[in-house]
């Protein structure tokens, strides 16, 4: 067995009442079908009403830690960039 036969997959799970898929972990599988099935065994215990996404790790492009500053610097000194000057209505729950 080599890693090219059994590449790494990232698993995202949405729980029954969850609103979005959350990264749950990773696993090895020969293809997407088996990755899905393995993910179900490993991360959901076959609980019903959940949704699973599997993505080959090689398909994910991550931001580089080296570029952290220019990439994520929130420009805190420019408050006009942040939408913080209005009240959120009570009815809005998941903003």
């Amino acid at each position: 067995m080599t890693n090219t036969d059994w590449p790494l997959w990232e698993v995202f799970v949405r729980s029954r009442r969850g609103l979005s898929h959350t990264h749950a972990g990773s696993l090895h599988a020969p293809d997407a079908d088996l990755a899905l099935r393995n993910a179900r065994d490993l991360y959901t215990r076959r609980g019903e009403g959940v949704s699973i996404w599997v993505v080959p790790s090689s398909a994910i492009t991550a931001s580089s830690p080296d570029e952290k500053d220019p990439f994520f610097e929130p420009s805190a000194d420019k408050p006009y960039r942040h939408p913080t000057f209005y009240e959120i209505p009570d009815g809005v729950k998941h903003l």
Partner: protein
Amino acid sequence: MSVDLATHAAALALGDDALVLSHRLGEWAGHAPVLEEEVALANIALDLLGQARVLLSMAGDEDELAYLRGERAFRNLQLVEQPNGDFAHTIARQLYFSTYQHLLHAELAAGEGPFAPLAAKAVKEVAYHRDHAEQWTLRLGDGTDVSHERMRRACEALWRFTGEMFQPVEGVDVDWTALETTWLASVTDVLGRATLSVPEGPRTGAWTAGAGRQGLHTESFGRMLAEMQHLHRSHPGASW
């Protein structure tokens, strides 16, 4: 729970199938080809053990039935007691048996009999077992030359044990002939997609298995039981 004789006999037959196959799959623990498969086989073994517990409890005390009966008193199919062999053998056994079990439980769940509540729960588990076996049959059969050859050999080696599954079980009210027809069509379809041909050997008659339900078992089953029952027989009456 007291049940009539036919239900008692049927609970033993179906319960022993699940118990024995569960034990065989448990033997894979720590030995599966990859970690993910380890979890899958253990999952299936646990499902089967759960079914065995419910069924054997219908027939009596589950522990007494599992640990204190001799080989001749077990009513499981000879198919499920077959040694694990290589991974292909285990998958072929799973394919044959889980397809059968899925069809059987779907029938039982739809009926009104004493097994309907158990079957309604089990049918979902078994659908997963069947899917698992089919997925691996496709991958091994349609994989490399080596995996194809191993899967072919496994399917042929276990073929003669498949006719026994459709001997009517007393107390189980299903159309066994229809079950067998559907089973054969399903297995033929999966093997075809896996680029494997349906084995040519006989499934019933001479040179086939068929007496597990009567308590006659193959040689390796005795050794399996010796291991399974060892502790309980060494310390009878202990609680644990």
